[in-house]
């Protein structure tokens, strides 16, 4: 079902008019209330009045993750904290997290877009939503919560983890919709199978899965094993959280709620705007956010946009499944990992030379991280037992740093590729296209 037909099915012309009006408004608000944007626009010799068409957005400077980080904690807020009623942050694994602040109207908008997303999965007030996204500073839990309540669903704020409990609740509360990462959905399916609970005995009909990259094969697998429609949700804390885009039942791309979030695709190297249908980095502008307007945020996510009316009736522009990142950042089982974190962990080990390579793969629908490290005399011994202890200790150091289990493989010195300049630290073998 369509949550907000007026917004979701508006004509192209109507939408462009609305987008332009909102774009002019957000640029003005950012310019007047956020010193960072005033400075950036002044430097570029721009004023809000220079935005006369949607194409004029290309004149605006980009906002990057590090710009937001530099403004930590509240430097990007366009209103006083008196008017902020909720804050969320990114995980902050690479340094300071970035903070997102919400006014009551922002929470309203967030609820609205997530309500659209859940409605795409068929949610109505009759549904019981088991929300296994983490509650807390992470946007996943509360974002889905706001949307679920807006629809009128019974939201179970079970949060992430404790799979036994999740399964008990699925059975006892007869949950109809589940929201979590796709890899966690796979894990739940596995545990159900292991415990001999047939999918016919549970009432789940749909799942809204996100916070990590996944594939069509994985969708098929989840749908088969859990007996649900598995839909892809997309979002990021810097923009609002989950609910920037979501798949409809056509399952061939994610509708971006483009009356609230204006998407562009740029070439990550040249930063030139690319024509519709071409693959590049997704750039998003918040059109309606009050608490923290963000102009032309570089998401680093690689996708392509497709316009036109969808068979579902919606006219929201569609983006392809995210197929990669424009930088080294890895999302492993929903957790963001940077090579620098691995390096930091390795450098804590005496005698370790940080010659390493990170290999991400997905052998059985679950992300795996292998770290290959060149062996050195300080780590080596004549005893197998000792070498295996060294390997385990490295694995533990990395686990402590990134919060994920990895598999360490010791390789011979100089066997990892060397490159001039920036070393190739990451090989992502996950097939996502």
């Amino acid at each position, binding site marked *: 079902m369509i949550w907000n037909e007026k917004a979701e099915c508006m004509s192209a012309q109507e939408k462009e008019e609305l987008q332009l009006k909102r774009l002019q408004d957000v640029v003005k608000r950012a310019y007047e209330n956020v010193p960072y944007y005033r400075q950036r626009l002044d430097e570029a010799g721009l004023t809000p009045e220079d935005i006369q068409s949607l194409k004029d957005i290309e004149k605006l400077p980009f906002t990057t993750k590090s710009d937001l980080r530099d403004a930590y904690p509240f430097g990007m807020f366009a209103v006083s904290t008196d008017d902020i009623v909720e804050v969320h942050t990114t995980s902050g694994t690479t340094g300071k997290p970035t903070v997102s602040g919400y006014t009551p109207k922002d929470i309203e908008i967030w609820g609205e877009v997530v309500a659209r997303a859940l409605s795409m999965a068929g949610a109505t007030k009759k549904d019981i939503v088991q929300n296994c996204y983490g509650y807390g500073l992470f946007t996943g839990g509360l974002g889905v919560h706001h949307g679920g309540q807006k629809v009128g669903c019974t939201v179970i704020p079970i949060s992430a983890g404790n799979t036994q409990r999740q399964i008990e609740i699925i059975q006892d509360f007869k949950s109809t919709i589940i929201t979590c990462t796709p890899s966690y959905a796979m894990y739940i399916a596995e545990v159900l199978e292991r415990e001999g609970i047939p999918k016919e005995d549970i009432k789940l009909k749909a799942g809204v899965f996100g916070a990590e990259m996944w594939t069509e094969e994985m969708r098929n697998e989840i749908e088969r094993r859990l007996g649900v429609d598995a839909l892809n949700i997309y979002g990021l804390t810097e923009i609002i959280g989950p609910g920037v885009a979501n798949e409809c039942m056509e399952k061939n791309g994610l509708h971006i709620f483009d009356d609230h979030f204006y998407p562009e695709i740029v070439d990550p190297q040249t930063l030139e705007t690319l024509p519709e249908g071409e693959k590049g980095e997704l750039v998003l502008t918040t059109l309606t956010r009050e608490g923290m307007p963000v102009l032309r945020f570089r998401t680093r996510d690689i996708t392509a946009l497709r316009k036109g009316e969808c068979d579902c009736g919606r006219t929201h522009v569609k983006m392809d499944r995210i197929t990669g990142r424009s930088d080294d950042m890895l999302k492993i089982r929903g957790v963001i990992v940077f090579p620098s974190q691995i390096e930091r962990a390795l450098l804590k080990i005496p005698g370790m030379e940080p010659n390493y390579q990170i290999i991400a793969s997905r052998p059985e629908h679950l992300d795996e991280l292998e770290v290959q490290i060149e062996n050195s*005399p300080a780590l*080596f011994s*004549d*005893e197998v*037992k000792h070498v*295996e202890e060294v390997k385990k200790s490295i694995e533990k150091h990395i686990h402590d740093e990134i919060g994920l289990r990895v598999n360490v*493989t*010791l390789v*011979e*010195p100089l066997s990892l590729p060397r490159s001039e300049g920036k070393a190739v630290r990451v090989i992502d073998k996950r097939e996502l296209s």
Partner: protein
Amino acid sequence: MSGDEKMKLKQISVFLENRKGRLWKAINILSGAGVNIRALSIADTSEFGILRMIVPDPDVAQKILEENNFVVKVNEVIAVEVLDEPGGLDDLLSVFNKADINVEYLYAFVEKKSDKAIVVIRTEDVDAGINALEEGEITILRANEVNIL
């Protein structure tokens, strides 16, 4: 610790990735340098192998292997001569068993010019291993004895 240094034999260990051609490469380098391998064993796991060798001049072998980017470790082991007949190894191990000494690994080779076999032993504590053997009146071979066999 009364372990006599002369009782210890130097062993060279080489880290090998579990990959085609790596063992050959290590051996090829030693062969090119004219190193005669007196005894050899390989410990293998699913991911890597450890090539352990007794060579006449372990320092030379270490240097040449390291120059070719191998990770090498030289450590001490014990070499013992046993009779090449049923029960030869049993007698030896029963000494360690009585002394409650843990053997990490051992490997043996038969000496063709005599009726003896040489057993290379790595006990968890090498000194304790030597003491136990001495008390059990088992003759420990010295480095020069192994190399002229």
